């Protein structure tokens, strides 16, 4: 296993007092925190910094670490504990799930899951709660109307003999109707395993609506671009338009304008308040001038109609 120089990671000397260590940790934690850091390796660095602070903030752990550092801190060929060395602060018989992301070095010498769980749950030392997991679940707009059963494949981190392994898991989940983008669904006990089934972590699914080839989402409303020819917009027309669950007839009134939205009530997405609406967004599509006859007819129209859309600018 590789030795971790926690002083170097926190960029402090080995004589630094707790105040200095805390200050260094805060500075680096803010710099590398996964929620804010733009650094490409931010998450990894954050774990390292947190691991280092976890040991150096604790007087007993720090004393033990200093001992280990004296013994083999400069070793480059891998690190082993001194013969007969026994930690008084760790109980590495059971793996610490809370520190599941920490290094093998930490987990071998400083993992104190048993202590944490005893104090937090008031139960035996060998009980521990599995980690909660979170993953995104792509959902099609159509599936939100009536709900859908989705097959799910994911990996669960499991510790075996100080080694982190990813175990593949498959589930079938019924997604309720009316879920919105970004909403969370909880699957109780489907996260990382705990010491008992009832202590398994939970799996959280974050709903991500898949972009639709025809519809845009605006809250619980759907927007459909509706191209019309100039004469359809001017004279009006009855059209069949697509909705999420079929087709509906829509009356385009005469004198419709580009950018105008026609509401088809109740044909949007399902939500807590009921159904949203489908908004058909009119766009006037000018046909290309391909022959002289068309050009002549446009010319005639221009002669007959003196309308000037820029009249208010003069």
């Amino acid at each position, binding site marked *: 296993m590789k030795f971790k120089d926690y002083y170097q990671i926190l960029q402090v000397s080995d004589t630094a007092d707790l105040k200095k260590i*805390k200050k260094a*940790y*805060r500075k680096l*934690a*803010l710099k590398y*925190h996964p*929620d804010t850091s733009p650094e490409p390796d931010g998450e990894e660095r*954050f774990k390292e910094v*947190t691991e280092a602070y976890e040991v150096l903030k604790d007087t007993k752990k720090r004393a033990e670490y200093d001992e280990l550092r004296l013994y083999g801190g400069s070793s480059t060929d891998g690190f082993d504990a001194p013969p007969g060395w026994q930690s008084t602060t760790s109980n590495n018989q059971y793996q610490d799930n*809370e520190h599941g992301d920490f290094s093998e070095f930490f987990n071998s010498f400083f993992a104190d899951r048993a202590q*944490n769980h005893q104090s*937090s*749950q008031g139960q035996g030392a060998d009980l521990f*709660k599995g980690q*909660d997991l979170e993953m995104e679940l792509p959902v099609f707009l159509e599936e939100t109307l009536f709900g859908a*059963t989705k097959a799910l494949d994911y990996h669960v981190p499991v510790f075996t003999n100080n080694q982190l392994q990813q175990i593949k898991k498959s*589930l*079938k*989940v*019924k*997604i*309720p109707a009316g879920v919105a*983008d*970004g*909403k*969370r*669904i*909880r*699957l*109780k006990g*489907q996260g990382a395993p705990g010491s008992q089934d009832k202590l398994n*972590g*939970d799996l*959280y699914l974050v709903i991500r609506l898949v*972009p639709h080839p025809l519809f*845009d*989402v*605006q809250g619980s409303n759907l*927007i459909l*671009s509706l*191209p019309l020819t100039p004469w359809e917009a001017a004279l009006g027309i009855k059209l069949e338009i697509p909705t999420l669950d079929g087709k509906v007839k829509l009356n385009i009134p005469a004198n419709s304008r580009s950018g105008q939205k026609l509401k088809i009530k109740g044909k949007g997405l399902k939500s807590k308040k009921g159904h949203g609406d489908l908004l058909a967004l009119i*766009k006037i*599509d*000018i046909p290309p001038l391909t022959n002289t006859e068309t050009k002549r007819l446009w010319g005639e129209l221009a002669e007959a109609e003196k309308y000037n859309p820029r009249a208010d600018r003069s």
Partner: protein
Amino acid sequence: MVEITLHIAIDELCKNARINQEVILEVVEYGIATPQSGETLSEWIFDLESAHWIKKAIQLNQQLLLDWVAISMVIDLMKEKEKLIQENDHLKSRLRRHRQFDLYQ
């Protein structure tokens, strides 16, 4: 088929996040999350979005050693950022469709 839930009770949330109910009370008092139902503290039930922000607040408190006022501000900004990202994605998708339409013309 796995059973799903859309909320979490305070005792379960405390057990999962390894905190006590007083911490949740503090998070609620700072406006970071609001219980969905429940008259008294021990009866509080949260929707999963609120539970997510409570856990995030506790993480920030433990990892960055920030006080609750700062955390409340950070969480507000994070929520705002999430909303803007979502809005931006929707607008980009509409703009793409609009451009496709113009190219077609």
